[in-house]
């Protein structure tokens, strides 16, 4: 058995043996490190342009949707459903990104804040 065949066998065996593991994102240390930067802070990069905040700030549209809904405007409900579909698309494409992890952290913080408010003073 040549070196090629031996290597293939070992690696395939390792793959089969390790199929029960949970995936993680391997990041070579030779690439620009993931995570915060010395000057760029938590984001690890200078954001040149982002409209994510605009998309993430739906209060005017949402308020309009809610108001419209309260006033019996069927279009408002459709708009809110469209925003929900946008959110689901974003969730599908944003997995494993820092933004998604920040979203998860934010949800945890909200749950923690609710719990804290319920605690006796």
């Amino acid at each position: 058995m040549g070196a090629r065949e031996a290597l293939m066998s070992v690696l395939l065996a390792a793959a089969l043996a390790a199929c029960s593991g949970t995936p993680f994102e391997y990041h070579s240390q030779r690439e620009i490190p993931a995570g915060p930067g010395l000057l760029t802070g938590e984001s690890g990069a200078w954001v040149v342009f982002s409209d994510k905040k605009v998309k993430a700030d739906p209060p005017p549209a949402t308020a309009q949707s809610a108001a419209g809904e309260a006033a019996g405007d069927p279009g408002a409900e459709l708009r809110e459903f469209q925003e929900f579909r946008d959110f689901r698309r974003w969730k599908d494409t944003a997995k494993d990104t820092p933004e998604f992890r920040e979203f998860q952290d934010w949800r945890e913080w909200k749950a923690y804040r609710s719990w804290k408010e319920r605690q006796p003073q």
Partner: protein
Amino acid sequence: MTKSALKPLLLSAAVASALAVLAAPAYALEAKISGQVNRAIMHADDGSNSEIFHVDNDHSSTRFRFVGSEDIGSGLKAGIVWEVEYQSNDSDQVTLVGAPGKSDTGTTFGERKMEVFFAGAFGQVTLGQGDGAMNGGIEVDLSGTQVIGYAGIGDLGGAIGFGGNSALTLRKVINQQDFESRYDRLRYDSPKLGPLTISISTGSSNSSTAAQNGLDIQEYGIWYSSNLGAAGTLAFAVGFSTKDLDTVTPGSGGDQETTGGSISWLHPSGWNVTFAISNVQNDAGKDSDFNYLKVGYKTGKHAFSADFGMGDDQVAVGDEAKHFGVQYVFAPNQAVDLYAGYKTLSLDRAGGVTFDDINILTVGSRIKF
């Protein structure tokens, strides 16, 4: 309706549908700049000459990167990656011969990636200058010391030659043979199949030497990374590449095929082991091999390792180059690495020809800005 009228109608309908998808409102556009600086002091000694160099550490060169991406609807994301390295005194270019006193290779501004990509449930398609499907496949490493020591032994002192001979440099006698590096290509990465990703690429080589430029390349491989819980973390890659040596000069010699891979295991205790192997079969020349083993230990912000590498027949049949090194990295946070490493290399040739060992000591720091 006749068949001749139906076909253009169907084509028009298909184009209109595609345009309707592409014209869907854009979502979540973001563009960012990031980068790093990596500087080191390197002392090299080939038995006859020695020198202290101030270098840019080619293990992870000084670079900046501009990335942008946008959700374009229908579950698709489009983006660009533009990454450039800018090195003053590249650590794999400095030599101990030439003008006395100091070897200064000057400042080099080099392309790394200039690519566009489209990603979705189907996986990712990338077009442009960038990593071939198996670039880094011989270099998978969980030790935490890659910034100062890894399978790419020639990245520090790569241009220093045994006996001062430029035909016997470290990069030539003990090269990790990591497939085809970066080139102009079309690449496809499958969606994650559990811990596995399948990657393929096809393109054309970039090289400063005419004989190696514009060669047709194909690469195939598998990438694996998994958290095994109490058993630790495992990552490996295995693949194959072929380069058509006849592309530019017909009749020059058939194909060059590279097979190889690497595997790295990190136990929860911090102990880790890495192994890499590659084999090149060259129709126009000779075959050659590379083997590499590293054992390391990570604890808190510290990582230690020792590695051993061997290159066989890489310049001439009968050549046996050996490397032994030790490495230490202190990472006070995710943005900063402080490191030190020492390595010694030897070369034995057919007929009992030997040379003085080459010894290199390096101390430096990499900071992500």
